[in-house]
Each structure stands twice: as C-alpha cells, then as structure tokens.
C-alpha cells in the first residue's frame, strides 16, 4: 500500500502550486496513470481522500486518466497497443516487444485553481 505515500507526494506538490498563487482554492487535480506505474488507481483514490482530509484540498475532485500500454512494434515499425499487461505484444500482429512507449505514466498533469 504505497499509494498513501504517493498521495502525500501529490498533496505536497499541489499545495505548492496553490501557495504560489496566493493560496488559491484547489478545485481539481488531474493525473495520468499507466498500468505499469505500479499504482492501483482505486487504492490511490482512497488514499488521496485520506491524505486530503483537513487540508485545503479536502473535497477537491480527483480526475484520473488511465493511459493504455503501447509498444514500439518491431514488425509493424510503429507504435501499437499491447494485448494486455500480461501479454506485451502487438495487438495487431502479435509480435512481442519490450519497447514500452506508454503505460508507465505516474504524472501530475494539471491543477484546477480558483484564485
């Protein structure tokens, strides 16, 4: 359950953005998360709620975009979706590929503030 420490990191970074704009109220936090980041989205939602309690982020929206896994397919010579996290091969031609393009994201994309 490392999602709590991840939630705390998000909280710290968002508070920094808010402080830089005169303690602006935080309406929403936007994240991009891939399945290969090692973070469970549902656990993170729960942890984020806990982390935000009694802070100025309490009650803010958490918008998570889940990024699908894509690979550089050596046969198609282009970026293709992977079949699944258990099967890292091209969903078009089935060629396995260790070259991951997307899916590792654990990114704080944006913050919605009211100044």
């Amino acid at each position, binding site marked *: *359950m*490392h999602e709590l*420490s*991840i939630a705390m*990191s*998000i909280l710290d*970074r968002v508070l920094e*953005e808010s402080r830089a*704009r005169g303690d602006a109220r935080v*309406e*929403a936090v*936007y*994240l991009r998360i891939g*399945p*290969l*980041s*090692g*973070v469970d989205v549902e656990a993170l939602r729960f942890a984020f709620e806990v982390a935000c309690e009694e802070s100025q982020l309490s009650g803010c929206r958490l918008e998570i975009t889940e990024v699908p896994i894509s690979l550089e397919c050596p046969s198609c010579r282009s970026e293709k979706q992977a079949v699944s*996290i*258990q*099967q*890292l*091969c091209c969903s078009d031609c089935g060629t*396995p*590929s*260790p070259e*991951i393009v997307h899916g590792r994201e*654990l*990114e*704080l*994309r*944006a*913050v*919605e*503030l*009211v*100044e």
Partner: protein
Amino acid sequence: MNRPRLVEVRENILKQNDLLARSLRTRFHEAGVLVVSFVSSPGSGKTTLLEKLLARASEKFRIAALVGDLATENDAARLMRAAPQVKQITTGTVCHLDAHMVELALANWELNKLDLLFIENVGNLVCPSSYDLGEDLRFVLLSATEGEDKPLKYPTIFNTSDVAIITKMDLAAAAEFDVELAHRNIQSVRPGMRVFELSAKTGKGIDELSSFIQSQRLVSQSATAV
C-alpha cells in the same frame, strides 16, 4: 467570483525520488561500484541467495549489502557472516525501499572502496516496482514453490526488473512446478528477459549467476571509461 483556471504541471509524481536515484547512480558509476537490487515476495529466498553470492564474490571483490525489512535486523546478521559490510534498513511500516533510504544508509560509506553493492528490497512484489533506487540492475526472484503464474499476477515488478531468477529449483519436482510455463509467463510480461534457474541450497546455478554479475561489472566499467 473568479472562474477556475487550469494550471499545467506535467510532472512525474515521484520526481523527487527519481532525481535522487539519478544522482545516486552517478555517484555509483563515479566510484566504480556495480549495484544490483533484489526484489521478490517474502520467503522466495533473497537472503539465502545473497549469502551464497556474497560468499562467492567476496573472494574476488570488495562487496557490501544493504537489506530492507519492515522490522528486525535478522537478515543483516545472517549476511554479515558472508561479508563484512552489511547494513540493515528497517522501514517500520513502509512496504518498499526508496532512493532516500538508500542515500541515508550509505551516508558514512566510502563507495570508492567497493566493487559491488547488493540491495535487498523489502519482500513485496507490488510497491518496490514504483521506486528507482539508482541500481544498475534489478533482479526479481520467483521460487519454484510459489507457482508458475506469479509473473502474470505481478506483471509490473517483472517489467521493471532486468533479470528474473527462479529459485528453489531443488524443490521444483516436489512442488510440480512447470518450469517451461514459468519461462513462457516471464517472456509474456517482459519479452526478451534474461532468466536464471538455481538452487541456493544445492549451489546449482550459482556459478552462472555469479559470472553474469561479474560480466556486468566489466560492462559497466567500460561504459564509465567511455
């Protein structure tokens, strides 16, 4: 009332850890020490394998180990019989090591007096996958008694590791462990992954792994020289 405004951040949430890991990696390279970390579920044989590797490698190399656990210093006490420089990191309730814990543990160490550093992570196949420790290579262990489908159940840790090691091969027949299927599952979650099979108890396969680590040391040295 002012309207909400979207402020772009576009930053990795674990940026602090990643920056610290990068600076550790630079320090390791400058000191000429190859760093290998070990991850697995609890009881897969990390400490037993490390005991054997330390004993083998300490004939030729200056070698040290960091061991992570939630509590107790038992593992460090075990490893200290095989190598002089061993430090336990007790994480309390934290389920993984991070770059900051590694940096603190190394505070008084003279890295340029080392050739090899092994880092044993907390027994956990989930949380350690998100944290770069500045290591050159990450080894993931899977014991024959755990079942062939561990890679499919924990794909991320296999994906973030460089090498897979199937341990307790002496028990494979008794556990009806399908080694071919285990290999297929590993390749499915991490195509092209290098896999070793061994038994720390009988010693079978330890030589091959030791030679591999040694060869990686030469690779990293020549990379640093360039």
